[in-house]
C-alpha cells in the first residue's frame, strides 16, 4: 500500500482558489465518500481548513491516484482542472507523513504554532473513519500525527503566547482576573479590533459586555453581534464605574477617558484591578491613567510588541519542533519498513507450514496405527519446531534499518526459499495482518 497526498494550501494557492476548493463549509464526510466512489484508493481522508484542502490516500496504484483526485476535485467543485492544477502540490510515501506531521504540529500553518489545526486534523480523520473510508495505513499515519502534534505542543513553546492583538488582550485579561466569568466589559467605539477583542473576551467567559458609541446604531449593531447590550454615549461615566475591562476604539482626536474620569470611577467601594485596552489611534485614554495603582493600561503598540515577542519566541522554537517531527518520522518509517517485510514473513511462514503438512501427510500411512493422542503430540511438536525456527528471521526482517537493506534481504529470502508464486508475487500482508484485515469499504 502506497501513501499519496494532493492538495492546495496558503503556500501554493491564492485565497479565492482555496475558497473554491474548500470542503469544510460542506459536508466533509460526503466528500470523502464521493472520493472513495470515484477513486481506486483503498483509504482516503479529506483535510479541509481555511488555509488548506488536502486529500490523503493509501492506494495500491499510486500512479493513477493523482489523475483520479484531480478528476474528483474538478467534478466535485465544478471547476475546470487547468484552473487549479498549477496550484496543486503533491507528496508520496514518507514525504506524505512528513507533511502531515508538520501540519499537525502547526509548523505548516499561516501563523506558526496556531492551536486549532491539530483538532482540525483529528476531525478530518474522524469524518473519514465514520464513513468507513479509512484503514490501517491512514489510521496509523493520522494517529502518529496526533502524537506528533501533542509532543510539539507539550515539549516546545511553539504554540505559546498570543499572536493577534485581540487574543493577546483576552489572554492578558485572564492573567489579571483569572476566570473572566462575572467580569464586566465595556467597549467604547465599535471598531474591528474592539469587536474581535469583545468576541475573544466573551469566548473566555466574560458574561456582561456593554457597548457605547457616539453613533448609537453602530453600538447597537455590535451589541447584537457579540451578545452584549447597548449603553447611550452620555452614560459613559456610569459605565466606566461598573467595568472591569474597558476596550476603547473611537476616532476621537482627543482623549475621551481622562485620569479624573478613571479616579472618579474607581472611587468608592472598588478594589479590583481595572484593565484598559486602548486600541484607538490617536489614543482615547490619557497616558497618566496607567500610573494609577490598580489600573493596567495597554495601547495598541504595547500589544503589538507582545505579539511580536510571541512570534519571535515561536520562531525560536521551530527548530525544536522540526527535530521532533524528524524523530517521529524516523520511527514511522521503521514501522512502515516492518510492514513492508510482512509480505515476505507471511510467505515464509506459509512455505514452512506447507512443508510441515506435506511431511506429516507423507508419514500418514506409517502413523496410521498410532493413537490420536500420539498423533496430536507429533502435530504439536512439528508446529513448535517451525515456530521456533521462524522467530529469529521474522524479527530480523522487521527490524532492518533501511529500505535498501530490506529489499536485499527479502529478495534473498524469496530466492532461498522459492517464495514467489507463479506470477512472481508474494503473499499480501493484508491477508495476515490483523490490522489490515479490518479494512473496510465506504458506506
Amino acid at each position, binding site marked *: 500500500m502506497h501513501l499519496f497526498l494532493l492538495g492546495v494550501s496558503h503556500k501554493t494557492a491564492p485565497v479565492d482558489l482555496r475558497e473554491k476548493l474548500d470542503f469544510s463549509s460542506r459536508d466533509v464526510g460526503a466528500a470523502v465518500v464521493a472520493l472513495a466512489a470515484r477513486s481506486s484508493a483503498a483509504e482516503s481522508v479529506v483535510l479541509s481548513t481555511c488555509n488548506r484542502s488536502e486529500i490523503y490516500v493509501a492506494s495500491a496504484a499510486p500512479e493513477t491516484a493523482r489523475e483520479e483526485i484531480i478528476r474528483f476535485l474538478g467534478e466535485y467543485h465544478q471547476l475546470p482542472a487547468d484552473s487549479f492544477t498549477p496550484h496543486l502540490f503533491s507528496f508520496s510515501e514518507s514525504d506524505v507523513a512528513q507533511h502531515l506531521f508538520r501540519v499537525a504540529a502547526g509548523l505548516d500553518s499561516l501563523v506558526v504554532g496556531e492551536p486549532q489545526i491539530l483538532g482540525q486534523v483529528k476531525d478530518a480523520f474522524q469524518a473519514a473513519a465514520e464513513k468507513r473510508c479509512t484503514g490501517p495505513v491512514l489510521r496509523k499515519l493520522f494517529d502518529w500525527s496526533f502524537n506528533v502534534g501533542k509532543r510539539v505542543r507539550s515539549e516546545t513553546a511553539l504554540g505559546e503566547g498570543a499572536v493577534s492583538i485581540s487574543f493577546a488582550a483576552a489572554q492578558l485579561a485572564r492573567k489579571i482576573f483569572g476566570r473572566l466569568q462575572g467580569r464586566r466589559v465595556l467597549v467604547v467605539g465599535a471598531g474591528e479590533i474592539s469587536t474581535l477583542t469583545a468576541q475573544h473576551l466573551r469566548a473566555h467567559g466574560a458574561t456582561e459586555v456593554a457597548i457605547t458609541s457616539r453613533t448609537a446604531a453602530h453600538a447597537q449593531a455590535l451589541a447584537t453581534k457579540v451578545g452584549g447590550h447597548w449603553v447611550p454615549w452620555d452614560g459613559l461615566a456610569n459605565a466606566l464605574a461598573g467595568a472591569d475591562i474597558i476596550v476603547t476604539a473611537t476616532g476621537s482626536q482627543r482623549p475621551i477617558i481622562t485620569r479624573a474620569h478613571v479616579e472618579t470611577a474607581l472611587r468608592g467601594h472598588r*478594589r479590583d484591578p481595572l484593565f484598559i485596552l486602548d486600541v484607538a489611534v490617536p489614543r482615547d485614554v490619557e497616558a497618566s491613567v496607567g500610573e494609577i495603582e490598580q489600573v493596567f493600561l495597554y495601547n495598541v503598540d504595547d500589544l503589538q510588541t507582545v505579539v511580536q515577542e510571541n512570534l519571535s519566541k515561536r520562531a525560536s522554537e521551530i527548530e525544536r519542533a522540526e527535530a521532533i517531527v524528524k524523530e517521529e518520522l524516523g520511527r514511522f518509517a521503521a514501522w512502515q519498513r516492518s510492514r513492508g517485510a510482512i509480505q515476505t514473513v507471511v510467505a515464509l511462514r506459509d512455505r514452512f507450514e506447507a512443508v510441515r503438512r506435506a511431511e506429516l501427510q507423507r508419514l500418514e500411512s506409517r502413523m496410521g496405527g498410532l493413537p490420536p493422542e500420539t498423533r496430536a503430540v507429533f502435530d504439536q511438536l512439528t508446529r513448535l519446531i517451525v515456530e521456533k525456527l521462524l522467530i529469529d528471521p521474522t524479527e530480523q526482517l522487521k527490524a532492518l534499518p533501511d529500505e535498501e537493506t530490506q529489499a536485499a534481504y527479502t529478495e534473498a529470502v524469496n530466492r532461498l526459499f522459492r517464495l514467489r508464486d507463479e506470477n512472481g508475487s508474494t503473499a499480501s500482508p493484508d491477508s495476515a495482518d490483523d490490522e489490515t484485515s479490518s479494512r473496510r469499504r465506504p458506506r
Partner: protein
Amino acid sequence: MNLIPLILYAAAGIAYAIHFARRDAAVGRTATTLLLLGVLSHTFVIGMQTMEVRHVPFANPSRAVSTFVWLLTLSYLYLELTTDERAMGVFILPIIVGLQVIPVLSPGIENRDPVLDSPWFWVHVSSLLFAYASFGLAGVLGLTYVLQFKEIKKKHLGYFYTRLPSLQILDRMNSRATVTGWAFLTLGLIVGVVWTVEAKKLAPANSNLQDIGLYDPKVLFALLAWALYSFAVLARGAMGWTGRRAAWLSAVGFVVVQLNLVFISYFVETSHTFQ
C-alpha cells in the same frame, strides 16, 4: 533522622525548579511525589520524637523549626493539591530546605521544663507555628504577586507572566493564608498570655517564667507580627489594600516571623526558653 526529609525536600526543590523552568508536567508530578515522600518521612521523624519524649517536640528551638517546616510543607501541599498549581513550589522549597538544615545541623535535645506540661502550652505553640506556616505561604504568594504585577504593569510580559497564576488568584490565596494565619496567631497569643498568668502563680520560683513580659524580644516580635497582620487584615477589608500593598505586607510580615522563629531563638537573649 532529620537528614532524610532534608534530602527529599532538596530533591523536590530541584524538581520544582526544573518544572518551573521547563514547564514539563512529568517533572512537576515527580516534584510533588518527592515532596509528599519528604513530608511523610518528616511525619515519621516527628512521630518518633513525640513517642520518645511523650509530647510533641517543640520546646527546643531546633525541633520547633522542624515542626514549623513540617507544617509549612503540609500547608503548601494542601494549596498545591487543591488548586493544581505548582508554580509556587520553586519559591517555597528554598525556605523549607533552608530551615530544615537547622534541625539537621543542631538536632538539640528536647528537655522540657516541667512547667510546660500543660495542654495550654501545646495549644499556644502549635497555633503559633501553624500561623507562621500560613504567613510563610502568604509571604511567598505576596512575592509572586509582586513579580507578576511588575511584569504586567511595566508591559514586559516575560518569564513570570508565562509561569505564574493570575494576579486575582494570587491575591485571593494570599488573603486566605493571611486571615488563617492571623486567626491562629491571635488564638496562640491569647492562650499564651492567659496560660502565662496562671503558670506564674503556680511556679513562683521559675525565673524564666517570672521574667516573661512585654519587653521580652520574642514576645515583642510576636506582638509586632500580630499588629502588622491585624493591619493587613483590616486594611484589606476596610481600606481596600488588596493586590500589591497586601503582597508587600505579607512579605514584610514573614520576615518579622522568621526573625522571631530563628534569629531571636538562637542569637538574642530571651527569657522565653524553657529548656
